[in-house]
């Protein structure tokens, strides 16, 4: 593995020196599992959603030639390191643990983590409410880390799902009592047909150490040229109103805070 990192760094350095990095296509990795309203395929196979549009807007602002590349969430960081993709834009929160492996751009959205339950369950988003309940979270998310830190031993079981959609499905079918996830994704879920079963009962107490500092683009360590270009792009679309325009299409509230 060590050999590989050196090699990768070498290639990156070479690309910087020749200045050829910009002209190449940038493969934007998104999770292959639907995560509405951020990213989901339509039946024609095109990926749409807030995050896809934001990614395209950033690329457009910086004149990058971007290709949306769906990769399994499970293998998304290895895919980045294996250079199948160049940047992860898959609602990935910036956390210390991840920052050891990859670098992050500035965050491009930040939302609280909420608990969703069946309507009228009486569950509250705290220890007392979740005691003895089955809580579902998505694997390798900040929510999993949070649940394991705060609700392990409180909830009767923390069930880990590969995708948010599976957790939602099991909440709908009553196999689990509650789900902890991103507020926006959950707002979209409870507004959907199947989400009619359920309601958001509130946000969990904040814990920056595990919940992170918002969602950012993930790039390979040392890929500073791309990271800085993307940062410039994020700043640009925030400033010129493109960001708000896209957000308005999907959400009724703002999802960006410093």
């Amino acid at each position, binding site marked *: 593995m060590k050999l590989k990192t050196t090699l990768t760094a070498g*290639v990156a350095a070479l690309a910087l020196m020749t200045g050829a990095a910009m002209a190449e296509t940038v493969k934007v990795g998104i999770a292959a599992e639907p995560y509405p309203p951020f990213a989901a395929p339509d039946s024609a196979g095109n990926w749409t959603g807030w995050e896809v549009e934001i990614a395209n807007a950033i690329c457009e602002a910086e004149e990058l030639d971007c290709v949306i590349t769906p990769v399994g969430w499970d*293998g998304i960081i290895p895919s980045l390191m294996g250079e199948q993709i160049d940047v992860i834009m898959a609602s990935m929160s910036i956390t210390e643990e991840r920052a050891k492996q990859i670098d992050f751009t500035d965050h491009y959205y930040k939302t609280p983590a909420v608990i969703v339950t069946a309507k009228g369950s009486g569950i509250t988003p705290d220890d007392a409410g979740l005691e003895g309940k089955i809580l579902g979270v998505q694997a390798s998310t900040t929510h999993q880390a949070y649940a394991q830190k705060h609700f392990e031993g409180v909830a009767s079981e923390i069930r880990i799902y590969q995708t948010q*959609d599976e957790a939602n499905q099991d909440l709908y079918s009553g196999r689990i009592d509650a789900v902890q996830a991103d507020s926006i994704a959950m707002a979209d879920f409870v507004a959907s047909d199947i989400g009619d079963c359920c309601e958001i009962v509130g946000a969990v107490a904040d814990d920056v150490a595990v919940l992170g500092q918002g969602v950012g683009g993930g790039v390979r360590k040392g890929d500073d040229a791309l990271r800085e270009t993307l940062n410039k792009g994020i700043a640009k679309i925030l400033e010129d109103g493109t960001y708000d325009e896209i957000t308005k299409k999907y959400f009724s509230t703002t999802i960006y805070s410093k």
Partner: protein
Amino acid sequence: MEQTLELLSLSPPGWGANLLRGLAASIQIALGAFGFGLIIGFFGAMGKLYGSPWVRDLLEVYTTVVRAVPELVLILILYYVGTDILNNIAGAMGRGPVEINGIAAGIWVLGIVQGAYSTEILRGAIRAIPPGQTEAARAYGMPRALMARRVTIPAMTAFAIPGLANLWLIATKDTALLAVVGFSELTLETRQAAQTTRAYFTFFLAAGFLYLMVTLFSGVIFARIEKWARRGQPSHRGG
């Protein structure tokens, strides 16, 4: 019922076209992996039968490991190793990262798995050839390559077909495992359609039907091939 038909219709908003696209990808991967596996299997079988002791032992390790470790684990290992190797080679040649096509990656990982089973099947088939046939060829002074092409391969085909037919079915079903690593094939397309529309039963049953059709259709094809391969042989049932 009407709703189901609408979901399965070929043009959007129906998802029928997605399933068929997935099926096409699955079949492509299965065909490629089966073919790649056959090539590995042929050389593997030759190595096991006629190779040096070293070659034989190494091949034994290969077939044993592949047949004992779950395909899912092998797929992950081969997928990461394969992309790492390719990128390192490209890096050493001063090129950027290699574009890895999902279908090619699928063929590579499943082909290696198939190769182990192919090796065993073909080895058995070659050993089943009546020794007189190869001895006769050798007595005529046939070169080895010609003997392989004219005698060994045609003669072993009949013995290998039942095993290979089974292996082909395994190949078609194993493509489903690629869904777990996010390759767009029938099972993943099905799952995406099911998750988006919530019509789980409809789509999983439809996909099951497609897989079953492939199986049944393959059965017919292989029966024909076997009949063809056995032409001219005394009509005993064996293999």
